[in-house]
């Protein structure tokens, strides 16, 4: 049954809550919904799942009234598959928007209206359930004849009472046997009781308890197992929604951990080989300021182009005729409908995709924008397109604004005070530039008087240790290495111990590149992270990557979560975007990665030298935005010609 129903403004004031459902919620699902769903441009999702810290898992559904700035949220137990919730929410929105007044803050009389609405919604859901069950009846009969009678009795008992929808609403998941069976049990157990009790919230529990005596041959343990499976499936499907659609990548086959050539062959790490030394000149931190410290606007152009150039989709379908739409745009009364938004959103989505934003992300963003604009009134003298574009710009800005502090130096100092080294682990797929950018980060830290130590935990790829050693020599920083074929987790652990002995403030851990589907390697990485508990897990990703960005990041996160032995898994904390200099204006990968992981872009690698490390500066977008918009406005002859021809035809029509 419903646990909680809320109506609140976008400003955060609760206007109305259902008093009958005075159940105390465990945790704060509403705040979690707003923080991790609505503010992350995921408001187009169907539902939000929340696991309370104690026991209990909730599902939340919501709907917006964008014109009035209201949000309607319903909270219910996840195991109850309430189907009428969406129906109820939209009915509530309809009714509430009529009595809403921005000056008022209490709506006591809505209680009555709500009761009415709830009744109607439940009846509708009941009718739908019956309709579906009528079609399914022969099958059910064939399967479990003994229970069919029971079911009918339950239905009849329920039909009279409005509380009857308790088990029934769960019933509608056609193909799902478990759900169906649960419905049967609920009905059979509650049918007779309906007259006495109205406590619907406990129906599921009751079904579980009363199950055996009422439905003789029914195996309860099996039922519970199935039920938990369903719940789990629901969980998983929302969690890995992103990754599921992508076709599975071919796993690299020729990489095997165990039967590789003997150690002596690969292990060149003994300091006998000194040839490299003579050539490598020692490089103190004097190659100039690392670009991290120079004011540089990396993302602004991308950002605004994404929003700005899309104007080319000017001819938006106008069904109502030029004059009436003109009038509406002046008076500012046009209400945005989904059909109005579609062409503009389509154009925006295409635009995003040409900028290398993963398709899935572009789609989700557009849906979320649509959800936030639908029903809004168009302001005076604005076009649909500019409204959509403004909303998109705001959304992009919001996404790229970091959620957590990206001030690494501050964290380093904090760790120093505690007398611990600050550990950064670099992870990523093969060949994205982990070691190179690790060296750049080391250079940047050195410039800020931080003692850095490198840990060569890529014990897999030949030459990896030598590569790192070369960087260490050039930068004159200590390196901790144990050669190849060692357990990277142990190497990292020893490196951290060594660092606390020789007063290093930061340990940069280089790991082997791995494809996100490679189970054994992901397991090794998970172990490394679990054992050493680094302060920062930095995902190194190429800016060149397109649709694969989603797959890489979501799988890395997923694997780290799945393979973790700790109750709270460490996930990716930040992103280092490499090869940013090669992509021109196709910066979509940054957006895809941030959207999918929620982690901020902490560094941007943009060249081959040590100084080529920047930070993504979202703040400086603002003043630039206007400039870009003007430049990108299609003031080309094309545009002018179209509008001129249009005006001419209109004048001609008027004369006729």
């Amino acid at each position: 049954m419903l646990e909680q129903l809320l109506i609140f403004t976008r400003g955060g004031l609760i206007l109305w809550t259902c008093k009958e459902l005075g159940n105390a919620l465990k945790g704060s699902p509403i705040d979690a919904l707003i923080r991790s769903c609505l503010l992350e441009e995921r408001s187009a999702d169907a539902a939000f799942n929340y696991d309370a810290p104690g026991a209990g898992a909730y599902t939340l559904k919501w709907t917006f009234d964008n014109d009035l700035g209201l949000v309607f949220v319903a909270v219910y137990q996840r195991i109850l598959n309430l189907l009428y919730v969406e129906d109820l929410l939209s009915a509530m929105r309809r009714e509430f928007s009529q009595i809403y007044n921005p000056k008022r803050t209490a709506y006591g009389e809505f209680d009555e209206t709500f009761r009415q609405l709830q009744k109607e919604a439940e009846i509708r859901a009941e009718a739908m359930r019956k309709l579906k069950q009528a079609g399914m009846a022969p099958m059910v009969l064939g399967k479990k004849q003994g229970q069919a009678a029971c079911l009918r009795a339950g239905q009849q008992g329920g039909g009279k009472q409005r509380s009857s929808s308790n088990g029934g609403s769960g019933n509608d998941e056609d193909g799902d046997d478990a759900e169906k069976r649960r419905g049967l049990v609920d009905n059979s157990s509650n049918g007779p009781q309906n007259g006495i009790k109205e406590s619907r919230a406990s129906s599921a529990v009751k079904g579980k308890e009363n199950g055996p005596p009422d439905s003789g041959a029914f195996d309860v343990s099996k039922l519970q197992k199935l039920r938990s499976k369903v719940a789990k499936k629901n969980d998983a499907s929302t969690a890995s929604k992103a990754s599921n659609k992508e076709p599975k990548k071919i796993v690299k086959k020729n990489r095997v951990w165990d039967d590789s050539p003997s150690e002596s062959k690969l292990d060149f790490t003994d300091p006998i080989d000194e040839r490299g030394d003579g050539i490598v000149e020692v490089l103190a931190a004097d190659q100039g300021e690392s670009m991290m410290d120079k004011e540089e606007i990396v993302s602004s152009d991308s950002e605004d182009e994404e929003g700005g150039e899309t104007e080319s989709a000017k001819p938006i379908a106008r069904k109502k005729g030029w004059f009436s739409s003109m009038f509406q745009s002046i008076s500012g009364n046009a209400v945005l409908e989904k059909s109005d938004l579609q062409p503009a959103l389509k154009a925006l989505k295409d635009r995003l995709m040409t900028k290398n934003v993963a398709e899935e992300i572009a789609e989700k963003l557009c849906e979320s924008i649509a959800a936030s604009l639908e029903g809004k009134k168009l302001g005076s003298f604005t076009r649909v397109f500019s409204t959509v574009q403004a909303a998109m710009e705001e959304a992009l800005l919001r996404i790229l604004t970091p959620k957590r502090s990206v001030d690494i130096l501050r964290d380093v100092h904090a760790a120093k005070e505690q007398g611990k080294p600050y550990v950064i682990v670099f992870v990523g797929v093969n060949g994205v530039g982990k070691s190179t950018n690790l060296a750049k980060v080391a250079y940047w830290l050195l410039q800020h008087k931080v003692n850095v130590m490198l840990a060569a935990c890529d014990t897999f790829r030949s030459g990896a240790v030598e590569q790192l050693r070369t960087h260490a020599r050039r930068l004159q920083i200590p390196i901790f290495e144990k050669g190849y074929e060692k357990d990277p987790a142990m190497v990292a652990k020893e490196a951290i111990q060594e660092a606390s002995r020789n007063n290093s403030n930061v340990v940069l851990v280089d790991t082997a590149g791995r494809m996100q589907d490679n189970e054994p390697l992901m397991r090794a990485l998970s172990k490394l992270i679990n054992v050493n508990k680094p302060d920062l897990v930095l995902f190194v990703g190429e800016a060149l990557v397109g649709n694969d960005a989603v797959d890489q990041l979501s799988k890395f996160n997923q694997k780290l979560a799945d393979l973790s032995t700790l109750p709270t898994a460490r996930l990716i904390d930040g992103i280092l975007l490499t090869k940013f200099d090669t992509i021109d204006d196709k910066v979509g990968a940054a957006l895809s990665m941030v959207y999918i992981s929620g982690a901020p872009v902490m560094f941007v690698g943009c060249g081959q030298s040590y100084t080529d490390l920047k930070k993504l500066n979202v703040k400086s977008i603002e003043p630039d935005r206007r400039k870009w918009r003007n430049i990108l406005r299609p003031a080309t002859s094309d545009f002018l010609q179209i509008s001129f021809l249009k005006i001419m035809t209109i004048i001609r029509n008027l004369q006729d």
Partner: protein
Amino acid sequence: MEQWVYHIKQQVSQIEQWIRQQPADQLYIAIAAVVIASALLILFRTFNRSKANSIILAGLSGSGKTILFYQLRDGSAHHGTVTSMEPNDDTFLLHSEVEKKGKIKPVRVVDVPGHSRLRSKLDEFLPHAAGLIFVVDALDFLPNCRAVAEYLYDILTKAIIVKKKIPVLILCNKTDKVTAHSKEFIRKQLEKEIDKLRTSRTAISSADVSSEYTLGVSGEAFSFSQCHNKLSIAEASGITGEISQAEQFIREHVKL
């Protein structure tokens, strides 16, 4: 393109001819009307801009800004609040002053959401700010201490705050609870944290956009008294409506 230019030229010459045909009086009147209208518009704009009469509520998410906003406006917490997604912006008479007689000017109070993704909204409102109330959760202070200090540091180093010397009130909220920390404790902790932040941030670079100004005197431990703008600290409780110190602050800085 050339075709285009030709078209335009034609149009322009047509318009010119048309204008020549009109009587001179009408033209003068039209020009005068345009001039007056634009002058009015400019006047209105500048008049509107120079006014700094709003009080801004800032602070971390969950510190109680929205409750405070409604306590100031209506004197009631209503049914409670959830995380804000948009700023609350209203101009009103303070609830405690509604009864008072005489001429009272309404105050514009803006509650800026504390969620880090929405903090950039703060910059929109700062140009109109007459004062800023930084709300701190006194109950849950220690785990959030660093985040609070960082946000406060960002605010205190904003160019507009330093230049216009916008007064800041650090309001320790939720003091009705027994386990809430005292304002003295919070002040000391914040000063200590900001001192650390200062060393790390100034070390970072001259070009870090977020810190436009440096705080305090270098070589000395930071204390709030070193700030150029007025900084005070007070206690309040949004739930119970014990907000007299906040109201006092507002009245000090928004003239009656």
